[in-house]
């Protein structure tokens, strides 16, 4: 293939990510699943990359969980979203960055619906004014927080204290990247690399010294899928999706899994325990699982943050084998200490998985 032609095709798969000045909205569930990820994102972008990232306590959920569970209709979700966008305008921003992949997908869906159906857009603007007295606005640029970390991955690499490399052998760590379905499968043009070649996490892994694992079920869903999980009797379906992925990646012996979605890291982390308990199988070495982390946590580790400040003690799968491999120092006695040394209490030690 002609190199220039290849470059041209690849350029069609890129999205525009503004340099600076963002209105940031948090995720509902990430704050409890991965309590330090969003704080790490804000610390990295504001204090290390010196970007203007604004957030307000007045923003709410995007309504995604209720919408995808059929608890609220689309127009209600759209009005909630219109309020978020209106807050962005009120505080003088045009670029919108969200922490959650479900939100990102729903924002894309909403903006696309407004573009297709201008009458509906007007109706939502009217609903917004009636309910909140806020002026309707649409972001000039909508990005996901992982897009920003991807854009500045090389700057982060320049500040790196550790790399995704085995510090004893010098070999790159084998890293599985898992993209949330709502990032680029619904609206491919909104994600870096589209639905066919999502590069947002692979780019980070390569920039930080790791080796991306390409395995057969790489693009398979983690299995969260809202309805599959919320109804207990359907959870076997969710579990089976994760199981399929782990069975597929097992021969490649990955050291780490990075994700950019709230549900994926949670389920790929917790289901490893359920698989170990019910099937007696673990996918790491010596009874360990494979650590599953958010991209902010991995960026934090690369930048030399304390693993316990990143909240890695809240994961089901212990990060210690990975930290040892990367040569990151940590104090085991500090693992379950909270802010100001407060004792958080220790979870029960499991026999089936570590």
């Amino acid at each position, binding site marked *: 293939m002609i190199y220039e032609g290849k470059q041209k095709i690849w350029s069609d798969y890129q999205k525009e990510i503004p340099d600076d000045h963002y209105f940031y909205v948090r995720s509902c569930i990430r704050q409890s699943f991965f309590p330090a990820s969003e704080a790490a994102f804000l610390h990295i972008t504001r204090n290390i990359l010196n970007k203007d990232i604004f957030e307000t306590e007045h923003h709410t959920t995007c309504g995604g969980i209720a919408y995808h569970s059929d608890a609220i209709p689309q127009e209600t979700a759209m009005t909630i979203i219109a309020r978020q966008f209106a807050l962005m305008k009120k505080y003088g921003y045009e670029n919108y960055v969200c922490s959650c992949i479900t939100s990102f997908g729903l924002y894309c869906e909403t903006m696309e619906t407004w573009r297709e159906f201008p009458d509906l857009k007007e109706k939502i603007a009217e609903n917004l004014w009636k309910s909140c007295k806020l002026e309707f606005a649409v972001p000039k640029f909508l990005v996901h927080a992982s897009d920003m970390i991807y854009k500045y991955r090389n700057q982060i690499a320049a500040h790196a204290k550790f790399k995704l490399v085995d510090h004893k052998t010098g070999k790159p760590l084998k890293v599985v990247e898992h993209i949330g379905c709502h990032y680029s499968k619904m609206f491919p043009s909104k994600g870096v690399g589209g639905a066919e070649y999502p590069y947002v996490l692979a780019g980070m892994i390569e920039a930080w010294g790791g080796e991306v694992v390409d395995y057969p079920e790489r693009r398979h869903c983690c299995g969260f899928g809202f309805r599959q999980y919320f109804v*207990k009797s359907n*959870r*076997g*379906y969710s*579990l089976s999706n994760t*199981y*399929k992925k782990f069975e597929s990646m097992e021969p490649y012996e990955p050291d780490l899994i990075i994700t950019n979605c709230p549900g994926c890291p949670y389920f790929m982390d917790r289901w490893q325990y359920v698989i170990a*308990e*019910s*099937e007696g199988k673990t996918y790491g070495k010596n009874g360990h699982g494979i650590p599953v982390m958010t991209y902010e946590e991995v960026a934090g580790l690369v930048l030399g943050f304390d693993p316990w400040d990143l909240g890695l003690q809240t994961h089901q799968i212990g990060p210690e084998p990975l930290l040892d491999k990367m040569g990151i120092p940590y104090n085991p006695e500090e693992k379950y200490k909270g802010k100001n040394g407060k004792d958080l209490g220790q979870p029960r030690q499991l026999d089936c998985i570590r």
Partner: protein
Amino acid sequence: MIDFGFKLSPSSRIDLDKVDRTLLKRIADMEPDFKKCMACGSCSATCSAGAYKATSMRRAILALQNGLTNKALEELESCMLCGKCTLVCPRGINTRHLILSIQKICGEK
């Protein structure tokens, strides 16, 4: 063991590395033209029985390749041996004879 109230669902995935190919090899030995099939579906499109019952030569061949012998036999169960599929096959496979061989080797009819 803890009862979570849910468990792994059986997978419908076909692992071609684990498929038993013994019957497939016997069929191919008896009917070498079997390997010429390109799954165009002309045979299924013209099938008289297929208009009324789930009968498809294309699906039967795919099932055999995936090691699903019973499914292949089900697909051919309603065949009336009219031979229209043989007339339309662009690869010139004697599909009528092939159907008889599949049924013979797979132990049905």
